[in-house]
């Protein structure tokens, strides 16, 4: 497998003049992949995220839950610097990936997105490309020329997204000809082809029917063997089913963060309990 498609974390850390997290040693001992410290975000003058701090362990699934407008999507989009492409968005604070602050001036946001993949709320395959080209697009447009390597990775990624058996005989068909659930798995395969270390999923099943959703939920468990997954969801049952850790957000603040079991069965904050039990939101 092409481990060295892009720089590894260690090579990357060596290549940039970065500021290491002050807690790097402790974080590495505890297997922390992503560490958010005192992170704030604004759209214009409206503050969307207020002093968010939390750490995410390697090879776990973390869900972000909370009512609409609480900042879940803003937070997840901040973790790969996608948020700053929105006009008027600004941020303050640190997000460390393996100890490197991704918001440091020396870090190229494009490189960050290669290491932190993203799957969006609505399936968004490239409309003019075939199934094969959709998965290969990230590699080809980033300068990978080796055709054999590309088709290997495409096959592997489609296997990884549990889509291979359904599309192996029609790789030349347009990506948009697939069903909604298949399109979303195609988008997952497209993200996997970049061999990311972290996968961000912004309500990946909200546009899908229950059967397609459960396929994607099953998939998440396999994916976490190789990846760290952060998922935004509106569906609390989904969060309870798939995730190891859960963070509850409200009005731009992270109210409570902990093991999923604890959050759902024994929440420490009253607000969390009221939300979990359906009293608001």
């Amino acid at each position, binding site marked *: 497998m092409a481990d060295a498609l892009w720089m590894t974390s260690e090579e990357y850390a060596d290549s940039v003049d970065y500021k290491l997290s002050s807690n790097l040693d402790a974080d590495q001992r505890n297997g922390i992949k992503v560490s958010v410290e005192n992170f704030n975000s604004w759209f214009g003058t409206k503050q969307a995220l207020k002093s968010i701090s939390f750490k995410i362990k390697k090879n776990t699934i973390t869900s972000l839950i909370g009512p609409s407008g609480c900042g879940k999507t803003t937070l997840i989009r901040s973790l790969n610097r996608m948020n700053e492409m929105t006009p008027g968005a600004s941020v303050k604070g640190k997000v460390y990936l393996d100890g490197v602050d991704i918001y440091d001036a020396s870090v190229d946001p494009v490189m960050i*997105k290669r290491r932190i993949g993203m799957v969006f709320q609505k399936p968004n395959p*490239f409309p003019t490309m075939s199934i094969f080209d959709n998965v290969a697009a990230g590699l080809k447009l*980033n300068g990978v020329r080796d055709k054999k390597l590309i088709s290997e990775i495409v096959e592997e990624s489609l296997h990884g997204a549990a889509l291979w058996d359904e599309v192996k005989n029609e790789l030349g068909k347009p990506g948009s000809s697939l069903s909604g659930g298949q399109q979303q798995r195609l988008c997952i395969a497209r993200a996997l082809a970049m061999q990311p270390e972290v996968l961000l999923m912004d309500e990946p099943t909200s546009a899908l029917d229950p059967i397609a959703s459960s396929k994607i939920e099953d998939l998440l468990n396999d994916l976490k063997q190789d990846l760290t997954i952060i998922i935004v969801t509106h569906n609390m049952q989904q969060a309870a089913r798939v995730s190891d850790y859960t963070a509850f957000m409200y009005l731009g603040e992270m109210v409570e963060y902990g093991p999923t079991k604890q959050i759902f069965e024994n929440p420490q904050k009253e607000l969390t309990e009221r939300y979990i039990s359906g009293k608001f939101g």
Partner: protein
Amino acid sequence: MIPLGSILIEVVKNGYAAISYEFLTEPQGKMVPSRSDLRNCEELGIPPQSCEIGGVGPAIQGTLIVVGYASLIGVPVGILTGVYLSEYAGNNRFARAIRFFNNVMTGLPSIVVGIVGYVALVVTLGAFNVTAGAVALSIIMIPIIVGVTEETLKLVPSSIREAGHSLGIPKWKVTMLITLRSAKNGVLTGIVLGISRIAGETAPLIMTILGTSLFFGSFVGPIDALPLRIWRLASQPYDNAHSSGWGAALILIIMILSMSIILRALVLDRRGRITAGARI
């Protein structure tokens, strides 16, 4: 439909008789008052080679050259400006100024564009020339392509751009290879519109390439074009000039129509199938 149909019928009815191999390839020959005069021209003492009414070969060649040359300038400039306005500029002052001037230029009288070409490139180079014509035509073409490109790109959902960015693809590649490709049907329509518009322009060509009955000779001398030839033939008082003019009009229409059909067939997606051009 009715005006278009009646124009087509009239042009075909009057023009088809003139068309022959010689008409497409030969330069214009002798113009005489009537067909019987033409038949009798030897008796009138005119040498036989001058008796042929000839054709519009130089005009066809000239139209291909000057329109092709103008497209080489106009298509890239138009598309890149449209891309800049839609993907990079946002709504800053500079972009608003470009949009404003672009709209004004869309309505610019073409004779004025011709005068600009004349002053800028004919006077300075000392001769009517194809570059002046191509520049004048591209000035007419660019605003059309800019407008259509910008509007079409704005219709591409931002989720497509985000998908590209999320794969760590640099912005210019996302723009040129994903967003623009998703909009290619619309952009192509803009190009076809622009080319069709300039292929029929006459006024700016009078001021820049002048027109001649000779084939293309040099980059610093007059060349011919179909609309110019039609205009000159129509303003002569001779029967055979008029029928040649109808024939030239028919050829111009066929050229524009087939260009549009061929371009579409080459690039447009058909349902359920991805064309070669759509692959990476």
